[in-house]
């Protein structure tokens, strides 16, 4: 008896690299990113500007343009898509994989009515025209929580608020009945209460359709709210990966700890923030070893040698790229630290402060 072959993951990136043409030479922005997205999974990608979190997905979907050299492998449901001709790619983009971006008003065409723009996606991906197209567009607007859907179909993007335009973008993304929605900072331009509405909507749509989600965000809170699994990026590499709850409860990599410690908190005692010293290095001036070493309180000789590989930390589903992983036991809840009820950011802050003291 043979067991049935395992279905391939929905998306698998292997050793994805991106280099940008800087005239005289190519500068590498992505240094071998490998990621797996299972069906129905919500994957969060966090990191600061320039870490490569957006480029990873733009490269995977062939959206970087001719100035970029992309290598590695990108499989969607077992099929290699890297290097596919544009026409084949556009069946995948918008069909299997839909994208939404930070600024909905600049992603929508200002001179076309909302209905026409959703209709175009419906025609391309589902072959709907005429009355069927309009009825489906109306259903989608209704589904994303836009009141008076029939009337809104005849309006232009400038007549809608930022939150409503993002709902329109989500409706367009749903038009192709995608297997995965890649959302790049989808709520960053929105006010807090509107952000909450959009996050609620994404929650509901996932529960209803089983659609997978890739959420790219600089906001750890947003990612913790939405993601099952999280990958943290720094300097064009994934430096830590794991189940969201476990990772934020006890991060392994000094950078993740630093990020959490740098966040102000709404609760708990108010204390000085632990800033990460220095700044992110420019892509053409990366240090030879670990990219984070120049800013890391735990760095030692070994870290300046070669970049550390992403490896298992011994805890379920967790990986981190740090030479000193074994030396950096998470002592967040140690006796000298805050109480067991302390909040993650507070714990991280205590942890980082201890590391700095130890180094001093």
């Amino acid at each position: 008896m043979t067991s049935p072959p395992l279905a391939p993951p929905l998306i698998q990136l292997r050793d994805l690299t991106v280099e940008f043409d800087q005239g005289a030479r190519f500068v590498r922005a992505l240094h071998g990113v490998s990621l797996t997205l299972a069906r129905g999974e919500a994957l969060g990608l966090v990191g600061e500007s320039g870490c490569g979190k957006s480029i990873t997905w733009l490269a995977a979907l062939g959206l970087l343009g001719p100035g970029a050299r992309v290598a590695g492998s990108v499989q969607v449901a077992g099929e290699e898509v890297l290097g596919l001709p544009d026409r084949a790619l556009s069946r995948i983009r918008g069909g299997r994989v839909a994208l939404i971006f930070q600024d909905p008003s600049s992603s929508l065409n200002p001179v076309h009515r909302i209905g026409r723009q959703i209709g175009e996606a419906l025609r391309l991906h589902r072959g709907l025209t005429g009355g069927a197209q309009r009825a489906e567009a109306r259903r989608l607007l209704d589904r994303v929580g836009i009141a008076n859907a029939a009337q809104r179909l005849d309006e232009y993007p400038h007549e809608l608020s930022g939150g409503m335009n993002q709902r329109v973008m989500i409706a367009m993304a749903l038009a192709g009945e995608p297997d995965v929605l890649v959302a790049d900072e989808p709520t960053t331009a929105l006010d807090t209460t509107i952000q909450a509405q959009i996050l609620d909507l994404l929650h509901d749509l996932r529960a209803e359709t089983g659609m997978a989600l890739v959420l790219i965000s600089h906001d750890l809170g947003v990612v913790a709210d939405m993601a099952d699994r999280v990958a943290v990026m720094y300097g064009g590499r994934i430096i830590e990966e794991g189940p969201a709850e476990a990772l934020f409860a006890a991060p392994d990599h000094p950078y993740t700890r630093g990020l959490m410690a740098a966040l102000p908190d709404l609760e708990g005692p108010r204390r000085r923030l632990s800033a990460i010293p220095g700044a992110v290095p420019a892509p053409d001036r990366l240090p030879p070893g670990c990219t984070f070493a120049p800013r890391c309180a735990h760095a030692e000789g070994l870290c300046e040698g070669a970049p550390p590989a992403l490896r298992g930390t011994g805890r379920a589903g967790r990986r981190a790229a740090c030479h000193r992983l074994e030396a950096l036991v998470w002592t967040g809840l140690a006796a000298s630290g805050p109480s067991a009820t302390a909040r993650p950011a507070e714990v991280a802050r205590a942890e980082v402060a201890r590391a700095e003291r130890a180094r001093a």
Partner: protein
Amino acid sequence: MSALLEVRDLARHFAVARPGGLWGRRATLRAVDGVSFDIEAGRTLGLVGESGCGKSTTARLVLGLTPATAGDIRFDGVPVTARHDGDWRRARARMQMVYQDPLGALDRRQAVAEQIGEPLAIHRPLTPRAERAERVAALMDAVGLRRDQAARYPHELSGGQRQRVVIARALALDPQLLVCDEPVSALDVSIQAQVLNLLDDLRARTGFAALFISHDLKVVRQMADRVAVMYLGRIVEEGAPDEVFHAPLHPYTQALVAAIPTLGRRRVRTTLRGDPPSPVDRPPGCPFHTRCPVAIARCASETPALRHDAGRAVACHLAAATPFAEIV
């Protein structure tokens, strides 16, 4: 003793044209509509609210950059007007601004040291050159810029370094009041923490008071001694940050706090429907009643006053029914 900055019933209305007709119909946009607050010397008031609530207009009004439609602003007892005369210039030397976008606030064609020294050149033109250079060097040290960065241009610096330049320039004249409008919103998390710590250190050292504006409640809590929450041009709640954020009295503040995704806390589903109304179409009665989950009939007709009690203030008919102590 009176406060360093006293703001009373401040309003700023803009005449706008509403779409429709040949020229559009005339309408009034009430950006700020009856705002009062005090800032004591050396203290920081945080102003929070979502886009369009009037917090940035309030900042401009306080500095006399925009004339007020009504109301009264006193800085150290002297009225602040938008008449850019000698009095205003003297007051302006003692109140400075830090902007959200440092690149936009800096001159791209001037080395940063020159820009840091510019307030001295304008307000104290008789300062000897050597003394001014010394002061610029001291300011650069204070904000954590290296001496060798003095001759750099803004585009050669990172976002965090540019904001340090803006802060150094704002502190050049030892102001008593610093108005910070979203000073860290454009910065990455790790850099944001550096700049917030810097502002904290400088405040401890020089003792300036601050009006600190942000949409980010966590940042405001980190920086402010008191916090005021604005909605559609009015302050709806005011108090100590921990009181306001941990036990908010106004339904809007409650929704705002609940909507923030935070590590280690599950976000509650939002109770607020729709977008805030436009400041051109401010609803009658309580400005929040159209989105309020607990509004009653009275809220649609009668505007609640900001009622003060025991160091807190709230503008809500429902919160006003009982003393605050019993609600919390």
